């Protein structure tokens, strides 16, 4: 019988929460890597077996572990992501942590991508065992400028995230840089183009700056061609591929809620359905549920209208944050939604947001959530 896995990356390790496909009885396995930061863990949908985890102990350098038996045993990458050693007199960089893992295109079954902090892009062509930098990005003479200088970093460090592969073109890649903006490559990473027209950047002097933006989470639809959304520091957007211009669909959110947040997740089959988790981006940017009343907002028409989905979530005095990697969906019908909080709670809805229940409490600070179906 197939099992549904919810991979919960936390500040203190990885937990695998699982159930049958009916989503009735849940169990938990872990912690794996107790005491170590697990920024992201992803099961390869192409083989249903290979599990990669981005791991860093507070004192030690960053690495990637892989498992082929759902975490019963782990092997460290033989060559973890690492920047090129600088020449004498040149300023070199070191990977602080591996932040994002993305399986490659279905036609490249052994390929994986990794995004790191400071913003860097790596690829593996042997299922995560050995990693090398993508020179078209890491060595690009414009890279530092795109990132606003390496000292311009959010609290956990500037990072490359939201690595996405176009399901219709293996060479077409999207990335998000915080800060820096969205970029795309149509030649497997050899060259990159900013993709930020129409996106606000209230913190930049030039309202039409080609880059320097702060995408929080970019999602490329896995089944529909050219469907791309992003939750940005300055709003929620849908990409109009014809004009290569972003439309601020967050303007249709209730005014008292606004359209600031970090995560965004898509319906696996309906390209017009998406969910966001708005947060307080006022004053000093508390980044908490607005007014202490957490809610998911759902759009069924590609962002033209939004509906509050908070049944079962706390009604008041709940000040948690949901990080950019910590909300996702499964592929079942109806779609299940999952969100993890900075307070260590794992919440789920098995009716596409209609009702929420808390699956787990008392976990460490949750960094990421991914789902997978395994035989």
């Amino acid at each position, binding site marked *: 019988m197939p099992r549904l896995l919810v991979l919960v990356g936390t500040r203190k390790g990885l937990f695998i929460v699982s159930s049958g496909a009916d989503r009735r009885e849940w169990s938990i396995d872990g912690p794996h890597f107790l005491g170590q930061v697990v920024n992201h863990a992803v099961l390869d949908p192409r083989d249903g077996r290979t599990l990669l985890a981005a791991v860093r102990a*507070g*004192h*030690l*350098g960053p*690495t990637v572990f892989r498992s082929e038996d759902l975490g019963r045993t782990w092997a460290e990458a033989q060559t973890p992501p690492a920047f090129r*050693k600088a020449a004498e007199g040149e300023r070199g960089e070191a990977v602080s942590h591996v932040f994002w893992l993305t399986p490659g295109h279905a036609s490249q079954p052994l390929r994986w991508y990794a995004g790191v902090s400071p913003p860097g892009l790596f690829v593996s062509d042997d299922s995560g065992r050995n990693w090398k930098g993508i020179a078209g990005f890491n060595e690009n003479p414009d890279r530092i400028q795109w990132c606003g200088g390496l000292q311009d970093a959010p609290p956990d460090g500037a990072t490359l995230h939201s690595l996405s592969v176009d399901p219709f073109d293996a060479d077409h890649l999207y990335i998000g840089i915080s800060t820096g903006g969205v970029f795309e490559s149509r030649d497997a990473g050899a060259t990159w183009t900013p993709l930020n027209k129409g996106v606000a950047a209230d913190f930049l002097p030039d309202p039409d700056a080609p880059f320097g933006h702060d995408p929080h989470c970019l999602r490329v639809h896995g089944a529909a061609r050219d469907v791309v959304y992003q939750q940005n520091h300055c709003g929620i957007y849908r990409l109009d591929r014809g004009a290569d211009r972003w439309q601020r669909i967050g303007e249709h959110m209730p005014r008292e809620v606004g359209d600031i947040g970090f995560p965004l997740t898509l319906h696996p089959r309906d390209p017009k359905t998406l969910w966001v988790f708005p947060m307080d981006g006022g004053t000093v940017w508390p980044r908490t549920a607005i007014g202490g009343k957490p809610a998911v907002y759902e759009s069924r028409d590609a962002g033209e209208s939004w509906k509050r989905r908070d049944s079962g979530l706390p009604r008041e005095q709940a000040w948690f944050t949901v990080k950019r990697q910590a909300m996702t969906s499964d592929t079942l019908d109806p779609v299940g939604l999952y969100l993890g909080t900075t307070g260590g709670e794992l919440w789920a809805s098995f009716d596409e947001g209609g009702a929420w229940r808390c699956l787990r409490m008392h976990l460490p600070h949750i960094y990421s959530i991914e789902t997978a179906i395994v035989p």
Partner: protein
Amino acid sequence: MKVLLPTPLADYTAQAREVEAEGATLAELLDDLDRRFPGIRFRMIDEQGAIRAHIKIFVNRRQAPGIASRLAPSDEVLVVAALSGG
């Protein structure tokens, strides 16, 4: 020579906290350690050859400023994972 390791690195050495490695410099010693315990060097030393921020390495109880430090066969190397974070 004798190398003393902190608990965060014990997974690489089958939980041994005291191991043997050879080298005329700290860099060579770390390379030898990595041959014996694959992956251990990168957890202590970044890709630019710098000792990581929360790692300290002492040679005969004196802190090594970098991995170019010279070693004698009778030296004792102590690796410490500094206390930090919460």
